[in-house]
């Protein structure tokens, strides 16, 4: 946490939703420390061949733009209006009813009117009207149009990097306008001018070069999993053996690299290893990890369609190279937006893969027929439903759990009940947050879409306020002490948000709970959980 960040009660008391006295077009943007991310490192931009690689600073007057930047934006805008019908429709149909205005965590947390989804989109629409509509060209400001200037561009940049593409606003829009797609278009335009942020550009370059956002090389990737193998043996007495890059394996497993590297996601990875070992011993389950396609996430999707496509293609290339039947995907957020909503027309059809069927239960995952990628919570929920796992939820009895729906898995692919089913079968104490903050109405963690950097912490904490507020409610009402989620950005971001807003609540992945509950044959007395912390009530007991 940065030293100069306000304490949570100060941030709350500073929150003032009174709009400025001036109209929005006459209120100039002020790029403020704590609210924006650093500019991309030119080496990363250059590595993937994106435009205008150079060092620049958002606080400088001169952003070192190409000389013809207005023309680049105009042409880029026109090209995207032609290419994406949805973009054209979203530019035209908003009636500015304001149903979305107070649904956005960024607006709720900052009180800045330009974070109302309607107004954020209007920043772009106003220029669209000026350049692409007759009324806007003739009537100017009367028709809500304005000319693109450097100040307007800076205003775009500032606010479209305060939207996390969570799509909560779109649930409430009577026209179904998907503001995330508008933000994606804006960020594509920034990319044309080299206005990327480093928290996105460097993971993209790393992923393209070494296969994952963190730049973990193959030998280090194996080394990290081996570290978990040792820890699992210490905790359970059972030696698990993951396989790597195995040709002819039945299934390829791909998950976010941060769960190999950063806590608490690492405990979720230990859960996967325990589950796969159990299934191998009991049912001959044959799954392999890849050190090449070693990233579930796709920060390319926060850059441009082309970058997203390049990074996404690696998982399919690897599945084909290894000759697996299908892909099992781990607990990740935007990975699923990319797979569920873009992959099939972007890199598909993946007709060299088989329609996914669980080799253990025979269940056909018909929803994954096109993409050939099954979400691990669907897979595990099915195993539990068919009675294939030997679970002892008692080892999670000390936890009082609530569940945060990741924006991308809930609104992006309708995955709502499977994670809950797993939690309820691995934990006795489960409590839902209020209805308007979960499922398809879930509140964002505040750091999605590549905004989980360190330098924009005030923005992140402000954006996490609505989610944290709902957690606080169940913490006070039901003594909830654990927030479960199925997204790696969530695990990293919510850990910080909880420390800031609700310090008594910790964060876990769903498969960490599975790993704690699952009995392994030959295990010793399990007196600690996967975090090597003593399990209350089971110290010295075998927990059976």
């Amino acid at each position, binding site marked *: 946490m940065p030293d100069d960040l306000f304490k949570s009660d100060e941030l709350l008391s500073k929150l003032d939703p009174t709009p400025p006295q001036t109209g929005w077009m006459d209120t100039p943007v002020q790029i403020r420390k704590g609210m924006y991310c650093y500019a991309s*490192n030119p080496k990363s931009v250059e590595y993937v061949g994106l435009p205008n690689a150079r060092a620049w600073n958002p606080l400088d007057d001169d952003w070192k733009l190409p000389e013809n930047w207005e023309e680049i934006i105009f042409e880029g805008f026109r090209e995207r209006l032609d290419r994406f019908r949805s973009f054209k429709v979203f530019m035209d149909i908003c009636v500015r009813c304001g149903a979305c205005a107070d649904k956005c965590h960024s607006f709720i947390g900052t009180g800045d009117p330009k974070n109302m989804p309607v107004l954020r989109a209007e920043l772009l629409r106003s220029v669209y009207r000026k350049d692409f509509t007759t009324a806007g060209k003739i009537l100017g400001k009367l028709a809500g149009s304005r000319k693109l200037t450097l100040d307007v561009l800076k205003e775009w940049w500032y606010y479209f990097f305060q939207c996390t593409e969570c799509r909560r606003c779109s649930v409430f829009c009577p026209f179904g306008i998907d503001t995330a797609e508008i933000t994606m278009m804006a960020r594509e335009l920034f990319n044309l001018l080299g206005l990327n942020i480093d928290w996105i550009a460097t*993971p993209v370059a*790393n992923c393209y070069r070494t296969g994952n*956002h963190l730049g*973990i*090389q193959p030998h280090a990737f194996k080394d990290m999993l081996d570290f978990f193998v040792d820890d699992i043996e210490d905790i359970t007495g059972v030696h698990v053996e993951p396989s790597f890059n195995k040709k002819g394996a039945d299934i390829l497993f791909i998950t976010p690299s941060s769960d190999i590297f*950063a806590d608490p996601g690492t405990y979720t990875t230990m859960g996967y290893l325990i589950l796969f070992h159990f299934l191998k011993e009991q049912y001959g389950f044959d799954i392999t990890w890849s050190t090449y396609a070693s990233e579930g996430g796709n920060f390319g999707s926060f850059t441009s369609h082309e970058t997203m496509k390049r990074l996404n293609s690696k998982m399919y290339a690897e599945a084909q190279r290894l000759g697996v039947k299908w892909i099992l995907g781990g607990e990740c957020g935007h990975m699923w937006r990319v797979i569920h909503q873009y992959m099939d027309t972007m890199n598909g059809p993946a007709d060299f893969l088989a329609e996914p069927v669980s080799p253990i239960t025979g269940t056909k995952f018909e929803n994954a027929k096109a993409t050939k990628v099954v979400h691990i919570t669907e897979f595990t929920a099915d195993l539990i439903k068919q009675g294939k796992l030997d679970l002892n939820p008692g080892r999670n009895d000390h936890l009082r759990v609530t569940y945060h729906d990741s924006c991308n898995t809930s609104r992006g692919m309708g995955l709502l009940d499977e994670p809950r089913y797993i939690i309820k079968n691995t934990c006795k104490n489960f409590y839902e947050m209020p209805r308007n903050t979960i499922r398809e109405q879930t509140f964002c963690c505040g750091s999605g879409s590549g905004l*989980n950097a360190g330098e924009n912490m005030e923005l992140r904490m402000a954006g996490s306020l609505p989610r944290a507020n709902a957690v606080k409610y169940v913490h006070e009402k039901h003594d909830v002490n654990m927030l479960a989620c199925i997204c790696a950005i969530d695990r990293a971001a919510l850990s910080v948000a909880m420390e800031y807003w609700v310090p008594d609540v910790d964060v876990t992945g769903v498969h960490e709970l599975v790993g704690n509950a699952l009995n392994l044959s030959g295990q010793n007395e399990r007196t600690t959980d996967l975090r090597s912390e003593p399990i209350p009530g089971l110290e010295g007991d075998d927990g059976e």
Partner: protein
Amino acid sequence: MPEVEYGGETFTVDEDGFIDSYDNWSDNWVNHVKEVEGIEELTDEHRLVVKILQEYYEKNGIAPMVRVLAKVTGFKLKHIYELFPSGPGKGACKMAGLPKPTGCV
């Protein structure tokens, strides 16, 4: 990119004060970070953390996960924070000349 000077040596740093390249790391850099971090005296424990970070980085091209650092040094995370007030990433990695990790972390 901003520059900092220490002991007659000039270093190029990023916005968070991380050194631009591991190759430019030196004893002067260590003393510079010591001052920035507000560490009173460099002890063998500080040097052990830096050494382990560098050995891991040279082998793997990335900082070790916090759990590995804790296990190899035998220091609890709390103690690492006592040694480096900004923590293992922003304090210890900075002193060792490693880059910041990025992604879903």
